[in-house]
């Protein structure tokens, strides 16, 4: 049950263009403060804070306090879990099907 809640939070966090933009910004340059992130976004400071809170709840963003500053880091671990759970296992049968199709078509041509 708890695991399902985690995955729901994760997909909800990804289902917003502003939050995906924040992830891209952190991917380009990690360890940024709220002020630095706001400079690149057409959003209020409060809006950015709310998006960051949701990303942190989904464990996509990790924060580290350095003195008075709070630095935001992209945490790719949950994305890797999505890859393993939702991509890798579907990719294998698809590739197998493609390679069988190729063999069948080549046989038909010959």
């Amino acid at each position: 049950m708890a695991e399902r809640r985690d995955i729901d939070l994760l997909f909800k966090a990804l289902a917003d263009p502003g939050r995906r933009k924040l992830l891209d910004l952190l991917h380009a340059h990690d360890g940024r403060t709220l002020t630095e992130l706001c400079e690149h976004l057409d959003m209020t400071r409060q809006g950015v804070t709310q998006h960051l809170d949701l990303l942190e709840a989904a464990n996509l963003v990790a924060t580290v306090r350095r003195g008075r500053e709070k630095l935001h880091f992209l945490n790719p671990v949950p994305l890797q879990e999505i890859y393993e759970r939702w991509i890798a296992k579907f990719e294998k049968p698809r590739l197998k099907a493609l390679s069988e199709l190729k063999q069948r078509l080549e046989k038909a041509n010959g």
Partner: protein
Amino acid sequence: MARSTFVYVTYIRTSPEKLWAALTDVEYMKQYWFGMRCESQWTAGSAWKLLAPDGQIFDSGEIVEADPPRRLVIRWQHQNKAELKAEGGSLCIMELEPTGAAVKLSITHTIERDPSKFIVAVSGGWPKILSNLKSLLETGSSVLQDPYPPATAAV
């Protein structure tokens, strides 16, 4: 001073003691670290090395702090590729904090230079290793057996 840092966080449904054992036990480690293993006495000041399945040393250094089951700090220098070795030592901090039924595992890997090819190299590996570790502790089996699955390589 320029610095490159990567932070990785995962929540694992286990106890801090079990997680500490998983991070420091050679046989257990091989199951989630793609056959790689760390060898150390796991006490402050003791040597530390990361070995490939064939015994080749990939990284080495020493344990800076060991406070089981809470905090482990490793001075970590790559040894295998010349350009990564030339970047010098990095610092890897592993912190374990109990949160409800789970343990929050935070790994902070820092090197005193920016940009750093070493940090780029480890940043590809850590998410896979940690997500494998999470699966193994929670379900008893790891998902990824190979960091580069042949099915993908065949494309």
